[in-house]
């Protein structure tokens, strides 16, 4: 299949009018959501359930002198008050992070960021629990805070992690990838070298549902059940077993409907652990739900990369090399959630979509007095930062060379015949036709016409008497290569757990099926698309395939949904399971038809005798036969099931080209995204409607990050993005009507060729909007987000530093 040839959807329709396989299909999960009958964690009510609330630190850095909980304990509705001192007696004051560090469940010695957990109150209702927080008296001894990551390694910087034996500074790690010497050589000889500093500021995934849990430790059976907002129920179960020393088989994690995740619900937060401790202490179920400020201030921020890029090229725009130095602000604890061998995630994919020989990056991570986190907000393990870096550097180069950025990209894009392509930092891109995607995006945008319009407007603005309010038009391009579906077990694990995923497919006697998955949907529509995957292979109508997920007692082990890994990993598991069922069905059909399996041929949903299509067995007939008394060949078991653990041989590499058109108000600095064109290639689309929805959501993220989202701090470490009044999300007014296109390049190593799409748009779109704004301003660089104030300052030649408070 060539890149531009769109495969037709599976043509046949089921009795309910759904495609038997791929194609547009309305979502199965919608029925309950539309009627207000979703089951989110906060909707759960158990008999005798109590409510927890967390007291948080007002300081970014302070020693705890004393905590007096007596008044809170005296509150008539309070059942328990838990402090770090209480947890110490249970050996639970600290817990491991996903990155080999430890983090406090409740602070014992010091608080290390504003919003850190200090005490936990359990009461009869939420209002009383929060009332009681006010009754806790904590005496703090404030310490100077490390706010600016660039000063974290100063010799006189306060040491944040004095809990760690022998620590004398705030350095976490240095990590390198690529070939520094090869870069030296290329850069020394290059005709053009452009260097640029840029910040990918701290942002937050901010799903509409905040994080929370209901824990119930049954005092009789000793079984712990936790209903919780997790994207990775199985991984959470193992971590709870390790942290609390509870037997894993006595822990059930249920992840019911999740109101958006975007990476926010990968980590394990103190609140989850505290609801468990609260339940153990009170012998009653305990619910804890964070409020929005708690969500924005304490759970899983994203990005916070200070980057210095250098790009080398010839005068006519052939890129020769790219090198990057990164200062990574990890907050007070190293809690990034990513594969163990990749401390900077997959950032070293920063070479992007281009063909050049030399690349190198060095990442230095530091502690600061900010919340922990790092890998979140649909970042594909830091590929967002990588794509932003390379796409900004390419535009900086275009700016210096006075070249059209589309032309510069076309000149350097990898060619289709170079795939599979090994990048200078060691990634093996599976497949792609990049020039086709760029051409398609330009075609949809009417790129040349847009450039003409821009030239005319600029000429008009230069005329005497020109309208000073005339908007400045900018066009920005971004080309991205994603790497998703982590990942091959031998390279990728989280906390020692290999990143393979299990899947069980059971076909019932009547030919209806249940598919059990280790991954967990947060809105991606797994109940629909995974049924379509099985339907595609087996021809069973998707409405007859029930997808079960989000319950560790009822699904096979696997690492969960993040990094766009569901389709590439679990989707492959489902396809392989369905294929195994199909193979077994052939044996059963042959037994029923009294012929050899080799004599059978498959058409959708049915094995039939070659040359005699009237003689055959449908899946429903085969299912009944395999559960019935039909004599099966020696060694063939009854029933029609398959269990698969899929260990991906490689990542899949979706890609795409985005073009943003913006108008900037020269008098206010207000940016309006006029158009946004997105061409995505994620391989064949299981359900194009859902794919487009995923892309739309990610594009809005890009507009948000480029124009308004940032969590900044003042010099005392006060979080300045702690509510939706301060941390702005794009509304319907800031988002344009998205214009989508596609090319289709299947993955050669995925059983059904699909690549995954969940994060592509979040990864690819910020650079397009930023490039467009800078194009409008005719500036080489200024940092996002381009709020009106920041845009205005950039226009005045005094750009703001977005991560710190305005001076």
């Amino acid at each position, binding site marked *: 299949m060539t890149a531009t040839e769109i495969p037709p959807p599976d043509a046949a329709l089921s009795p309910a009018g759904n495609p038997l396989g791929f194609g547009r299909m*309305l*979502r199965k999960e919608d029925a309950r959501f539309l*009627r207000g009958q979703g089951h989110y964690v906060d909707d759960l009510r158990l008999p005798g359930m109590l409510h927890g609330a967390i007291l948080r630190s007002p300081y970014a850095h302070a020693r705890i002198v004393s905590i007096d909980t007596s008044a809170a304990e005296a509150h008539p509705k309070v059942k328990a008050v838990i402090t770090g001192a209480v947890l110490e007696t249970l050996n639970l004051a600290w817990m491991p992070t996903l990155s080999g560090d430890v983090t406090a469940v409740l602070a014992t010695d010091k608080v290390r960021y504003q919003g850190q957990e200090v005490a936990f109150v359990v009461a009869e209702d939420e209002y009383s629990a929060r009332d009681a927080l006010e009754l806790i008296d904590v005496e703090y001894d404030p310490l100077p805070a490390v706010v600016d990551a660039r000063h974290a390694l100063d010799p006189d910087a306060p040491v944040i992690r004095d809990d760690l034996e022998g620590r004398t500074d705030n350095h976490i790690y240095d990590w390198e990838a690529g070939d520094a010497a090869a870069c030296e050589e290329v850069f020394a000889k290059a005709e053009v070298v452009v260097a640029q500093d840029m910040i990918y500021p701290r942002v937050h995934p901010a799903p*509409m549902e905040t994080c929370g849990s209901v824990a119930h430790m049954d005092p009789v059976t000793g079984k712990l059940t936790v209903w919780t907002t997790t994207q990775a129920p199985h991984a959470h179960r193992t971590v709870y077993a390790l942290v609390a020393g509870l037997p894993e088989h006595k822990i059930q994690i249920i992840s019911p409907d*999740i109101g958006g995740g975007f990476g926010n619900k990968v980590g394990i937060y103190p609140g989850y652990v505290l609801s468990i401790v609260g339940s153990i202490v009170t012998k009653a179920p305990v619910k804890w739900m964070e409020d929005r400020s708690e969500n924005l201030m304490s759970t899983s921020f994203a990005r916070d990369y200070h980057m210095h890029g250098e790009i080398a090229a010839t005068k006519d725009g052939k890129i020769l090399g790219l090198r990057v130095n990164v200062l990574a602000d990890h907050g007070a604890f190293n809690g990034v959630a990513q594969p163990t061998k990749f401390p900077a995630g997959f950032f070293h994919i920063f070479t992007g979509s281009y063909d050049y020989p030399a690349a190198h990056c060095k990442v230095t991570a530091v502690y600061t007095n900010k919340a922990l986190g790092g890998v979140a907000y649909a970042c594909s393990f830091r590929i967002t930062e990588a794509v932003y870096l390379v796409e900004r550097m390419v535009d900086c180069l275009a700016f210096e060379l006075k070249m059209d950025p589309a032309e510069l990209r076309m000149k350097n894009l990898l060619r289709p015949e170079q795939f599979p392509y090994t990048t200078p930092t060691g990634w093996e891109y599976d497949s792609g036709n990049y020039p086709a995607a760029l051409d398609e995006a330009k075609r949809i945008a009417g790129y040349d016409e847009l450039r003409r319009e821009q030239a005319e407007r600029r000429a008009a603005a230069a005329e005497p008497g020109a309208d000073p309010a005339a908007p400045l038009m900018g066009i920005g391009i971004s080309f991205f290569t994603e790497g998703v579906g982590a990942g091959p077990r031998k390279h990728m694990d989280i906390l020692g757990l290999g990143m393979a995923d299990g899947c069980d497919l059971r076909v019932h006697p009547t030919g209806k099926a249940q598919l059990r998955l280790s991954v967990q949907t947060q809105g991606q529509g797994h109940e629909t698309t995974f049924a379509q995957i099985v339907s595609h292979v087996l021809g069973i109508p998707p409405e007859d395939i029930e997808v079960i997920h989000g319950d560790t007692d009822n699904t096979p082990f696997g690492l969960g949904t993040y990094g766009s890994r569901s389709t590439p990993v679990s989707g492959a598991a489902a396809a392989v399971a369905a294929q195994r069922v199909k193979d077994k069905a052939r044996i059963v059909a042959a037994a029923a038809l009294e012929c050899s399996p080799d004599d059978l041929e498959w058409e959708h949903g049915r094995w039939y005798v070659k040359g005699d299509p009237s003689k055959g067995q449908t899946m429903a007939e085969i299912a009944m036969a395999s559960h019935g008394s039909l004599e099966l060949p020696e060694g063939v078991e009854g029933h029609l099931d398959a269990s698969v653990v899929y260990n991906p041989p490689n990542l899949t590499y979706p890609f795409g080209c985005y073009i943003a058109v913006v108008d900037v108000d020269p008098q206010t600095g207000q940016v309006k995204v006029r158009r946004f064109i997105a061409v995505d290639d994620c391989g064949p689309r299981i359900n194009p409607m859902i794919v487009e*929805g995923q892309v739309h959501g990610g594009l809005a993220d890009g507009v948000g990050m480029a124009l308004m989202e940032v969590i900044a701090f003042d010099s005392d470490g006060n979080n300045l993005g702690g509510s*939706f009044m301060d941390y702005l999300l794009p509304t*319907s007014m800031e*988002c344009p*009507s998205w214009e989508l296109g596609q090319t289709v390049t299947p993955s050669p190593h995925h059983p059904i060729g699909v690549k995954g799409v969940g994060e592509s748009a979040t990864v690819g779109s910020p650079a397009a909007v930023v490039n467009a704004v800078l194009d409008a301003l005719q500036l080489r660089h200024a940092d996002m987000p381009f709020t009106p104030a920041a845009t205005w300052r950039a226009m005045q030649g005094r750009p703001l530093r977005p991560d710190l408070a305005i001076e």
Partner: protein
Amino acid sequence: MRVTMKVNGQETTAEIEPRLLLVHYLRESAGLTGTHWGCDTSNCGACTVWLDGAPVKSCTTLAAMADGHEVRTVEGLADPVTGDLDPVQQGFMEEHGLQCGFCTPGMMMTARALLDRNPDPDEDTIREAISGNLCRCTGYENIVRAIRWAATHQTVDSQEVSA
């Protein structure tokens, strides 16, 4: 204090603290968890319900303020007798206007109110009407299409309502 209010046409009553928010009354006292809560600052609109026919943010309304009034929530959108979906609900399904579903109830209550006021809104009008409802999943495109779908598929019943 005791409050009594009609929710989706049914009388409800409860002894409450005067400070209880309407969103919590609906979720806890009335047991209607379709109305969600998403922020502390009246920004997100996940809690949108109708109070006497007009959309309000129930996180910014005291339950006491609804005493003696009529409230309509997402559970009251479908036809109470037949259970048939309102065209707005149908439109959200047809046009994939929801993903995680968390913003959806509030979004649909706002949309229904818009269509009752203006049965044929254009895209700009729709975007403005839903600008107080945040959605983190859909990028709004399909929500706009869903509301347009509902506008072009008004049932006889809902046309009467909007007349």
